[in-house]
């Protein structure tokens, strides 16, 4: 066989193999023809690949859980009434005494796999989620610190007397913890929990198809079958791509709009926007377990070097001014009087007191931030760097793509990488301890790595308060001012969650953490 014949026969074989691959549908039907279709939600963040709700803190996956899972209650968290709670799987939540909480449940709810929802599921969810080895540590204490009993199939009693903290801590958590099936939980973390979602929410998890999480309407949803036939939740990494998808009608909802995109979309008749003050504050975290930020005077000096008004100008509509370590829509928020503001003279005084007059003697400092996920991090990171340099801090800004930043984010023995790191923290509940305890208690200290007995004591004091009123007072007069004085992190501002959606999409309710109730959504 010569080369010509080899080539000829090779091409014929190739054509024979390729012919069945041609899709004839393209020639006879329009690719844009659409009938009744699922809601298309484009996300800026990918998921973890493990569906166990207690195994991650990833926001996009919490949003998916919002479609599929059921909650005892939901907290709309609007600024005019941050503590409001709407009952869902629970009919009422009552504090019997400081250490006992009674939860009454609906009796007409079933999981997507057909199992009736009962008190045993709440008990199993609480006990499993609070195990010390579960990565998403949302509970006020481990399963050793409280007891759950079920007098009947639709009543749950939570007793926190063993832990010595108030049972009311479970009230706000009720709006955040997705209820899992006791049957699923019995298989443990290596069982079905990790491979699929099984909830009582309006949409049933069908499959993960590449980057698409496919969900379909759950006909037996206790509030009635959703109007849209399903939801497809898809990770699309590029912000411009998401916006174009919304504009051409391929997407119905997109999240985390950049301020420039807001201006573009405001001029479009068939697009509408949703702006919500979110539960997420953006922080400048100091690595408190290594020099020089192990010294609170240096931390405070750095805070006084930063002009937050400049940051707000950069953030535009994507940021809301706040002066506390939690969002204004969290329980206990107050504008702190001693919150460090821009004051170069005070900065210099503190630096001199710390032994670094004019910044002399400070080591080279690395400030780590990300680009591509949070809006404007690089831009305001450059401003913060310049302001710190102006006061004598030898800072270098290191802007990283999200995966590399994520790898360097958390505290490690001896202090995490760099000296300062930018990150937000968002939890879909009014519960402030989901932020404060998680980050500032020496038993958790996720990013800043602070170990301070006084802060630990203040955190325990507010947690152990017997009533919500006493707790609020403890938060506002003890813990929060103490944090503003020791500044293990500087909360820069509160994020504004901006969603873009098609104008013909109605009935969506978006919570301030980005999770969405689409049970009453209609398209067109």
């Amino acid at each position: 066989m010569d080369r010509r014949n080899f080539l000829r026969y090779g091409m014929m074989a190739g054509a024979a193999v390729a012919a069945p691959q041609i899709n004839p549908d393209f020639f006879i039907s329009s690719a844009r023809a659409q009938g009744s279709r699922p809601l298309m939600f484009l996300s800026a963040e990918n998921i973890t690949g493990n569906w166990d709700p207690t195994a991650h803190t990833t926001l996009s996956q919490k949003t998916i859980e919002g479609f599929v899972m059921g909650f005892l209650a939901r907290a709309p968290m609007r600024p005019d009434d941050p503590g409001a709670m709407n009952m869902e799987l629970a009919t009422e939540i009552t504090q019997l005494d400081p250490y006992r909480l009674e939860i009454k449940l609906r009796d007409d709810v079933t999981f997507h796999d057909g199992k009736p929802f009962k008190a045993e599921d709440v008990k199993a969810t609480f006990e499993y989620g609070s195990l010390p080895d579960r990565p998403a540590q949302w509970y006020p204490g481990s399963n050793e610190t409280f007891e759950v009993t079920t007098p009947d199939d639709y009543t749950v009693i939570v007793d926190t007397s063993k832990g010595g903290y108030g049972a009311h801590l479970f009230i706000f958590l009720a709006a955040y913890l997705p209820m899992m099936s006791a049957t699923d939980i019995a298989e443990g973390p290596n069982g079905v929990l990790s491979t699929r979602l099984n909830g009582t929410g309006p949409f049933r998890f069908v499959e993960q198809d590449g980057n698409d999480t496919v969900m379909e309407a759950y006909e037996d949803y206790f509030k009635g079958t959703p109007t849209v036939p399903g939801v497809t939740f898809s990770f699309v990494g590029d912000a411009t791509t998401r916006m174009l998808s919304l504009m051409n009608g391929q997407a119905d909802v997109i999240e985390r709009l950049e301020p420039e995109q807001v201006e573009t979309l405001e001029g479009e008749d068939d697009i509408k926007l949703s702006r919500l003050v979110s539960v997420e504050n953006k922080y400048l975290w100091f690595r408190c377990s290594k020099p020089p930020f192990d010294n609170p005077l240096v931390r405070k000096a750095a805070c006084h070097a930063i002009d937050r008004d400049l940051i707000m100008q950069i953030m535009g509509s994507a940021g809301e001014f706040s002066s506390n370590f939690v969002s204004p829509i969290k329980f206990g928020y107050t504008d702190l009087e001693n919150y460090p503001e821009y004051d170069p003279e005070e900065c210099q005084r503190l630096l001199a007191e710390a032994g670094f007059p004019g910044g002399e003697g400070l080591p080279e400092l690395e400030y780590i931030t990300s680009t591509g996920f949070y809006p404007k991090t690089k831009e305001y990171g450059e401003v913060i760097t310049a302001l710190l340099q102006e006061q004598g801090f030898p800072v270098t800004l290191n802007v990283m793509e999200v995966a590399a930043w994520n790898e360097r984010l958390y505290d490690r023995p001896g202090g995490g990488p760099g000296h300062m790191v930018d990150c937000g923290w968002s939890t879909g509940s009014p519960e402030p301890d989901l932020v404060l305890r998680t980050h500032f208690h020496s038993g958790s200290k996720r990013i800043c790595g602070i170990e301070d007995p006084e802060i630990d004591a203040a955190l325990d004091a507010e947690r152990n308060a017997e009533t919500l009123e006493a707790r609020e007072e403890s938060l506002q007069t003890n813990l929060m001012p103490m944090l503003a004085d020791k500044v293990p992190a500087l909360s820069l501002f509160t994020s504004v969650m901006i969603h873009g959606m098609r104008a013909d999409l109605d009935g969506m309710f978006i919570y301030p953490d980005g999770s969405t109730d689409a049970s009453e959504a209609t398209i067109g």
Partner: protein
Amino acid sequence: MFIVRFLARRLLQGAVIVFLVSALIFTLLRVVPGDPVRLMAGGMAPEALIEQIAEDMGLRDPIYQQFGRYVAGVVQGDLGQSFVRPANGAAVGGASFDDSTRGERAEVWDLIAQTAPMTLQLALLAMAFALVIAVPIGVWGGLRPGRLPDRIALYLSSLFVSLPNFWLGIVLALLLSVHLELVPAIGYEGFAYTILPAFVLAIEIAPFIIRTLTVSVAGVMGQSFIDIAAVRGLTRNQIVFRHAIKNSSVPLLNLLGVQFSMLLGGVLVIEFIFDYPGLGLLTINAVMQRDFPLIQGIAIVTAAAFVLINIVVDLCATAIDPRLDY
């Protein structure tokens, strides 16, 4: 038997190239910053667990030992498992350190097999568009060197090559998809989703084809056999289409081979902008997630494709011009 010797020689050369590419990629990936175990296990994983996982996976062994194990697997057709992607193929972020789905990671080969046909379809359509755009312009310019058609070919090439593909992609998506609603733009739900990204790629490739053809056709038209063809009584069309274009196509063929290989290697920006689920998007996510096995697998497959395409191009060239001997 000539063809057997030819193929054996070229495939052997190709195997050496693929080996060198994989050795280079393997080494580079392990010296750049970014610990894949930290990404796999999640930021909250304790340091001791990170080290334990790394040691269990052999990631703390010397690089030559890791490479030896990897090559042994590749020779047996095993490209390994993705560090982070689950079997359903989703692009995932840092999971928890207690991630029990670790055992269900996707096979690298499966991920490539799912996405490569998408990129192949995109590359073929882009190539077809590029030829439709470039061949008339290039031949026209080549037939009239130094005159208006040649200058138009030059200006158009300059214009096309100056357009950044990410900008053109966004503008065309805005115009053709958002405003005129002619074609869909983002993601993939059918063949129509390939048209717009393929067109953008075609605009990117066309200048090279136009310039190659213009120069090549002009060169062939200046040769004596073309002058003699007119004396033999052939019409202008016969001279151009039967002789000039055929003889001008050998350099074009080599160019197309290289361009097509580059397209298969992952059209990163275009697939990212259009969220087109091909090898390019897979590569971007793999790089961002420090998914070493996936990056290595893609590199090996694309290097192998590069070698095979060039063998086919050489065969085609000899079919057109038997004087060529490789």
